[in-house]
């Protein structure tokens, strides 16, 4: 990682200055090693952690030689020789051999099934072992070991962590935080043995278990050794360079040979070796500066660790061992699972340990690095930055503004606040542009909020706060409206395309975003977009309502609530034939047949289809029912034919997909027997015409409709209805019913679009009717004929030996 990073920094400064050849031992292009844990845990794929693809190397004229490590350096001839025998000359040579995992040489350490956790090959081995099931032992309760344990546990293995020290991660966490972490991991099903010393790994040819010095034997088919790393220096040593614990380098990363430089975990600078990424980035910057004749130099790094172990946030920085003159400020909130400890000496922070809530880690770390006098905020220090600086105000922007330019914003890519601000100043005025130009927030995304605050701070009013809205879900930093806008603006045509272009953080989204994206694409591309069944909730996939016992209920459409003997007979027959335990009239005047088994659904639909009945869509985010009263034909108060208008309206609107369920009612007179004033769209017939009502909801929050307008004819009522539905379909957020939508955008805006803008209204109605030409197919009919029948049938069985 350090080597490629150094090349990136170099190219960023002066692309044409050097011709670069990179030798790598692994068969892969440069990937983000820190993200191996999410790959192991199944949260990311390998492709998602690649930093630059092959094309980047070609574009920058970098020769990339993979699976061919350098095995010898000839300093006299200024050449390197790789394993394949290839010899390449150099003017300058950069050694970035990193570190090797440390394997404890206990008996049995060479058995098959004992591995380390260092590269993609290790991850592949762990995944393969987990696929076979069984038990795993992880030796080492540091970060790497715990991440390996977490990943293996998520992949179904029973995991035991063996740690020599009395508490976990003792180098990053104090005893209290280490203990909290242990309890939390145990609660997630892992076995954690602290103070446990490995005696031997037992097994014939493959690992069978681990024996501790106290005699305990823990069975295991996989043993992961994650006890530490040591700088990989043999190559430098054989070339005769000065080597201590690591390869000796000066402030410009130059080794004892002026033509040879070194960066990363393999170097020793000022007596220090580093195993965290932040110092590596510092070194790469100093190196690239040196190679392009800027002489900033590297002065060593103060390190902090911000980690997510098994979904638990932990942070530590500096010295937390206490000692002379050190005072502890501690906050414990057991019920929230939060522990914070700041160590202060001479009114300056010298260390911090945060567990459960690490939001202020960056602030403490920044204060510590700057050696700031904290005496004025000392009494509020432990409550965090917002409280200490703002007297209880919680303005995240003020918090970001208070950070120094050197404060690290993006840990994954080593980007400082100063660099983000410079990149915004250089024209990157959107989150995407920032991600593209300085890479902040482009990897794990946990710093997205901070980057947005920097955008807002730097651009002031010019920054629209495009994403200051709630995000769609945790897979993205975009809000619903952004996603809808981008789908249309960029002409995106599929869910994977949206996820790719908008930097989704998960491989295939979640149960919140996928149904929403499916709907947005369906709405944007009528007749073109191919519906994604796997992104639909079960009711829509099965065209029936799932009930608490896993059976389904079936509602045939009854246009306007009107039925006849043939339909009633068909329903009665279905109830008897399939032993349905309940038939019930719904709130929308339809008959609901309960207790149908999944495998019987196609036959039930076929029987109902035979009597001329189609699906009532009582399960979908779609037009449900049009409720009516009897109207002027029979009722002595009825002023218009509400039943007839209801049937026509249902014929026009059925089958349409919506952001949420959508209900219509038509009442024949202001007595409102069809309860039209608590429907998404309601019509009240009056002597002089039709009152059109919108935004009613009979749900948890009962909301009475707003009067949209009054029209004179049935045709107008239907036209306005179509236009209103289309506006809702195009502009509401998924799972937002009309009531909250109207409250959010305001009735005036709806009126302006539907009532006052005749041209816009016609266009909306036309788009609705166009989209209806593609979706008024009965989903039951296709299924009853056998489409996707496998959804209803179990897999078949074949015994093998």
């Amino acid at each position, binding site marked *: 990682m350090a080597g490629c990073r150094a090349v990136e920094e170099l190219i960023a400064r002066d692309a044409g200055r050097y011709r670069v050849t990179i030798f790598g031992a692994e068969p892969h292009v440069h990937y983000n090693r820190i993200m191996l844990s999410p790959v192991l845990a*199944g949260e990311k794929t390998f492709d998602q952690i690649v930093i630059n693809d092959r094309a980047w190397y070609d574009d920058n004229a970098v020769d990339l030689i993979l699976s061919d490590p350098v095995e010898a350096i000839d300093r006299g001839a200024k050449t390197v020789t790789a394993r394949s025998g290839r010899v390449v000359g150099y003017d300058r040579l950069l050694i970035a051999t990193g570190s090797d995992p440390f394997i404890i040489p206990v008996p049995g350490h060479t058995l098959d099934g004992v591995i380390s956790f260092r590269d993609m090959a290790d991850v592949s081995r762990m995944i393969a072992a987990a696929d076979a099931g069984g038990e795993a032992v992880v030796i080492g309760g540091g970060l790497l070991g715990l991440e390996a344990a977490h990943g293996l546990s*998520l992949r*179904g293995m029973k995991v035991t962590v063996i740690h020599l020290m009395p508490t976990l991660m003792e180098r990053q966490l104090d005893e209290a935080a280490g203990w909290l972490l242990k309890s939390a991991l145990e609660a997630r099903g892992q076995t954690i043995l602290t103070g446990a010393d490995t005696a031997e790994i037992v097994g014939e040819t493959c690992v069978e278990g681990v024996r501790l010095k106290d005699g305990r034997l823990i069975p295991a088919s996989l043993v992961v050794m994650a006890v530490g790393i040591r700088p990989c220096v043999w190559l430098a040593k054989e070339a005769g360079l000065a080597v201590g614990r690591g390869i000796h380098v000066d402030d410009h990363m130059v080794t004892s040979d002026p033509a040879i430089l070194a960066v990363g975990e393999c170097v020793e600078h000022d007596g220090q070796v580093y195993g965290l990424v932040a110092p590596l980035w510092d070194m790469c910057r100093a190196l690239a500066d040196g190679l392009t004749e800027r002489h900033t130099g590297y002065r060593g790094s103060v390190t902090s660790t911000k980690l997510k172990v098994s979904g638990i946030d932990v942070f530590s920085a500096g010295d937390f061992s206490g000692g002379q003159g050190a005072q502890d400020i501690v906050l414990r909130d057991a019920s929230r699972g939060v522990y914070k400890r700041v160590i202060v000496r001479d009114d300056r922070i010298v260390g911090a340990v945060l567990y459960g809530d690490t939001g202020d880690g960056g602030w403490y770390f920044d204060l510590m690095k700057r050696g700031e006098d904290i005496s004025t905020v000392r009494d509020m220090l432990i409550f965090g930055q917002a409280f200490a600086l703002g007297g209880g105000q919680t303005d995240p922007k003020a918090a970001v503004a208070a950070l120094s330019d050197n404060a690290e914003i993006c840990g994954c890519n080593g980007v400082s606040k100063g660099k983000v601000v410079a990149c915004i100043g250089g024209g990157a005025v959107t989150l995407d542009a920032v991600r593209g130009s300085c890479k902040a927030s482009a990897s794990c995304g946990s710093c997205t909020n901070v980057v947005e605050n920097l955008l807002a701070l730097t651009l002031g009013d010019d920054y629209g706060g495009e994403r200051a809205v709630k995000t769609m879900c945790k897979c993205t930093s975009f809000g619903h409206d952004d996603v809808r806008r981008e789908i249309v603006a960029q002409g995106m045509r599929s869910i994977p395309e949206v996820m790719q272009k908008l930097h989704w953080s998960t*491989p295939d989204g979640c149960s919140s975003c996928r149904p929403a994206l499916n709907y947005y694409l369906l709405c944007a591309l009528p007749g073109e977009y191919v519906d994604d069944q796997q992104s639909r909730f079960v009711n829509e996939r099965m065209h029936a309502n799932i009930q*608490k016992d896993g059976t389904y209920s079936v509602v045939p459409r009854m246009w306007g609530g009107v039925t006849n003997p043939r339909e009633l007979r068909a329903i009665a027959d279905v109830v008897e034939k399939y032993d349905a335990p309940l038939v019930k009239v719904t709130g929308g005047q339809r008959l609901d047949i309960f207790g149908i088994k999944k495998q019987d659904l196609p036959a039930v639909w076929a029987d109902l289809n035979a009597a001329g009945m189609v699906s009532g869509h009582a399960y979908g985010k779609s037009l449900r029912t049009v409720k009516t009263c009897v109207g002027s034909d029979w009722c002595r108060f009825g002023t218009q034919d509400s039943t007839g208008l209801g049937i026509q309206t249902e014929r026009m609107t059925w089958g349409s997909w919506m952001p949420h369920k959508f209900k219509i009612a038509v009442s024949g007179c202001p007595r409102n027997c069809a309860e039209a004033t608590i429907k998404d769209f309601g019509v009240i017939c009056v002597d002089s015409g039709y009152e059109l009502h919108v935004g009613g909801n009979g749900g948890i929050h009962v909301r009475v409709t707003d009067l949209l307008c009054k029209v004179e004819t049935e045709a107008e009522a239907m036209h306005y209805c179509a236009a209103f539905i289309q506006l809702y379909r195009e502009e509401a957020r998924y799972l937002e019913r009309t009531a909250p939508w109207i409250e959010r955008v305001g009735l005036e805006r709806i009126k302006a679009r539907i009532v006052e803008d005749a041209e816009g209204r016609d266009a909306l109605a036309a788009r609705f009717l166009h989209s209806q030409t593609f979706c008024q197919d009965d989903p039951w009919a296709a299924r009853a004929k056998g489409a996707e029948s*496998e959804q209803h049938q179990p897999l078949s069985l074949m015994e093998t030996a």
Partner: protein
Amino acid sequence: MTADRWIDVGRIEDIPPRGARTVVVEGGDEIAVFRAGDDAVFALINRCPHKGGPLSQGIVHGHSVACPLHNWNIALATGLAQGPDSGCTPTILVRVEDGRILIAPPQPVPA
């Protein structure tokens, strides 16, 4: 642990990506066999630890499934409920060999 009885339940293509099919083994609970977007295959008892929802009917995302009844997220590899929820659905040993899915359900106890 090795299974002494692997049952062939079909080809991996018999299950749509990000989908599931069920298998009924005589004398045992219904089993849901999942195929994730990356073609990893998992098998669980078809029952959410919360209210028994049929997990096979849920939305599969990553290596998790969201129960169709109350949207609990269950990890396909471990059967463990994710996030704030707790509970576990028993997992069934499964492997893919030459594109065929083999499962090893627990042996029914002979009467």
